[in-house]
């Protein structure tokens, strides 16, 4: 008790101060949710460019048929590490960064519930990725068996130990981050901020955090069993010893499918914040949106085997997983309908965050439709392991998750930095990205339907034209993201245009009541909640 009281005095002493002057003290030992959020976002952007450079190698190799630039093993390392870096290093940390920055501001909390654990959650990530990427420089090379790490393929080579260790670190980081988010939302809301008055972004993260806690330990279990199979003589997945390699696929996808939703539910939350702001209307069907997110999260646990239709499941299982998967279209359709209906009749303007959000709604829906096609078990035998799958999940994860993160960055950058970004360059970035991303990924549908398998460095000449188009789109899309980097650097360090506290005319919520840039400490005194100020202050209970 005495210790706790002492802590409070420490807080009191620092409360009116700004951030520590010492660079190390501020950034390495930070327990401030805004600084840790910034660290996550900078880390995610760095990994986005590292993972993107791997994608450039892949598209350069596939520019023409035949082996062009790299050895096949290195190509396989690139496909494997591109996925691991983008999923665990770019998309997920970016969402956690957004959560760190915005959730305390949105619910009126002074910080995250467990600030020191927050620091640890972040600092595990750079070490995890140093371990993972260091394998590229080791004798024998890095992991090359795909991000799914299916045995027995993934057990060839020694890098699996490093990969497993890195995955464990990422998993621990994600679980601690999720615990912190749940503890913050459930315990730190300002008086009067009822659960059903919370912004949809907060709701989406609350549900995502439960998903993380439920499935990240399953991935940890799966890769631990890989490790013991490789080094400790167990036979979990070794058929010769009585194990079953297909068992790994079941465990992996029990994690893997909810993981897909972990990467898209916060994106739903972001778009649900941005569209009402620029349509100048409250979101249509607030409660339906929340229940749709919860429904999608629940369904994500009972559809994992649709990734495994081709392994030889019993007919009853194929039918169950096919229909369960198709069922996800219902709550997803509710969300798309509600976004469109929010825009309907709204007084819309098309600033860059809104443009990315509208592109999200349209292009994510295309990814959803190709997902429905893949859900059909008989058809999946044709599509399985082809470029159709690659096209599908890139529409969901690039024009879905990544576009939402970019939209969020443009939307909240004025609040974070206190400066407005350059709208002209933002729009150039948008149009360049949205055209190039379709040049990049749309032809991959045709390649997949024609039978081009994924994860190969060489291909039949029949696939040459679409691959060349796709590669041109890839280089174009990659170059477009340098514009984004330039816009962000300009806005943070050089922009002369200051942002008002409420950066956007139609923006509602507690985060817009604090100054821009948001002070180092906010809501040290819990705000008095004014329902008119909240986006969802008048929801019927």
């Amino acid at each position, binding site marked *: 008790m005495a210790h706790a009281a002492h802590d*409070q005095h420490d807080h009191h002493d620092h409360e009116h101060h700004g951030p520590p002057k010492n660079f190390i003290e501020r950034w390495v030992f930070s327990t401030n949710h805004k600084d840790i959020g910034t660290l996550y976002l900078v880390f995610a952007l760095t990994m986005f460019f590292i993972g993107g450079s791997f994608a450039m190698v892949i598209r350069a190799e596939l520019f023409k048929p035949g082996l062009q630039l790299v050895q096949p093993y290195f190509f396989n390392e690139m496909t494997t590490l591109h996925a691991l870096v983008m999923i665990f290093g770019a998309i997920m940390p970016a969402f956690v960064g957004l959560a760190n920055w915005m959730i305390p501001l949105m619910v009126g909390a002074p910080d995250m519930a467990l600030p020191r654990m927050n620091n640890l959650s972040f600092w595990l990530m750079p070490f995890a990725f140093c371990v993972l990427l260091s394998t590229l420089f080791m004798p024998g090379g890095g992991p090359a068996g795909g991000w799914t790490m299916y045995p027995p393929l993934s057990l060839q080579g020694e890098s699996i130990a490093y990969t497993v260790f890195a995955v464990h670190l990422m998993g621990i980081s994600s679980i601690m981050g999720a*615990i912190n988010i749940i503890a913050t939302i459930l315990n*730190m809301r300002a008086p009067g901020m009822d659960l059903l008055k919370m912004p949809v972004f907060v709701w989406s993260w609350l549900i995502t955090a439960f998903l993380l806690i*439920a499935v990240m330990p399953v991935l940890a*279990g799966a890769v631990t069993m890989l490790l013991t199979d490789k080094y400790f003589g167990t036979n979990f997945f070794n058929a010769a010893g009585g194990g079953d390699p297909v068992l790994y696929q079941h465990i992996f996808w029990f994690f893997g499918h909810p993981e897909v939703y972990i990467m898209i539910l916060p994106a739903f939350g972001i778009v649900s914040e941005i569209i009402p702001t620029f349509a100048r209307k409250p979101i249509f069907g607030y409660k339906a949106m929340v229940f749709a997110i919860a429904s999608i999260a629940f369904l994500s646990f009972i559809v994992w085997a649709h990734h495994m239709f081709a392994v030889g499941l019993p007919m009853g299982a194929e039918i169950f997983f096919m229909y369960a998967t198709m069922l996800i279209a219902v709550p997803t359709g509710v969300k798309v309908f509600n976004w469109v209906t929010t825009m309907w009749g709204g007084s819309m303007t098309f600033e860059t965050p809104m443009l990315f959000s509208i592109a999200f709604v349209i292009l994510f829906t295309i990814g959803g439709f190709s997902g429905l096609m893949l859900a059909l078990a008989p058809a999946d035998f044709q599509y399985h392991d082809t470029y159709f799958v690659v096209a599908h999940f890139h529409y969901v994860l690039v024009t879905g998750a990544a576009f939402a993160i970019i939209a969020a960055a443009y939307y909240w950058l004025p609040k974070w930095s206190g400066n407005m970004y350059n709208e002209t360059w933002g729009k150039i970035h948008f149009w360049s990205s949205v055209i190039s991303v379709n040049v990049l990924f749309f032809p991959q549908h045709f390649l997949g339907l024609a039978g081009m398998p994924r994860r190969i460095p060489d291909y039949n000449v029949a696939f040459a034209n679409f691959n060349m188009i796709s590669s041109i789109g890839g280089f174009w899309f990659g170059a477009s993201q340098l514009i984004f980097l330039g816009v962000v650097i300009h806005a943070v360090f050089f922009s002369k245009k200051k942002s008002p506290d409420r950066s956007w005319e139609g923006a509602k919520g507690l985060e817009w009541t604090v100054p821009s840039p948001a002070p180092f400490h906010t809501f040290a005194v819990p705000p008095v909640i004014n329902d008119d100020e909240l986006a969802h202050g008048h929801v019927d209970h």
Partner: protein
Amino acid sequence: MATSTIDPLNAHTAHQEAEVQARRKRARRTAWILGGVALAVFLLSILQMLNV
């Protein structure tokens, strides 16, 4: 907007002090429960495979 009701960082009264302590206790309890669930899921995912 910034009118105070409770100040968790500058708790001066016994009531406010108690409120802050209760909130901290709830946050810690939430963290321990969720951490326990995560650990249990990890162990169960391996233990049930031992029967294979």
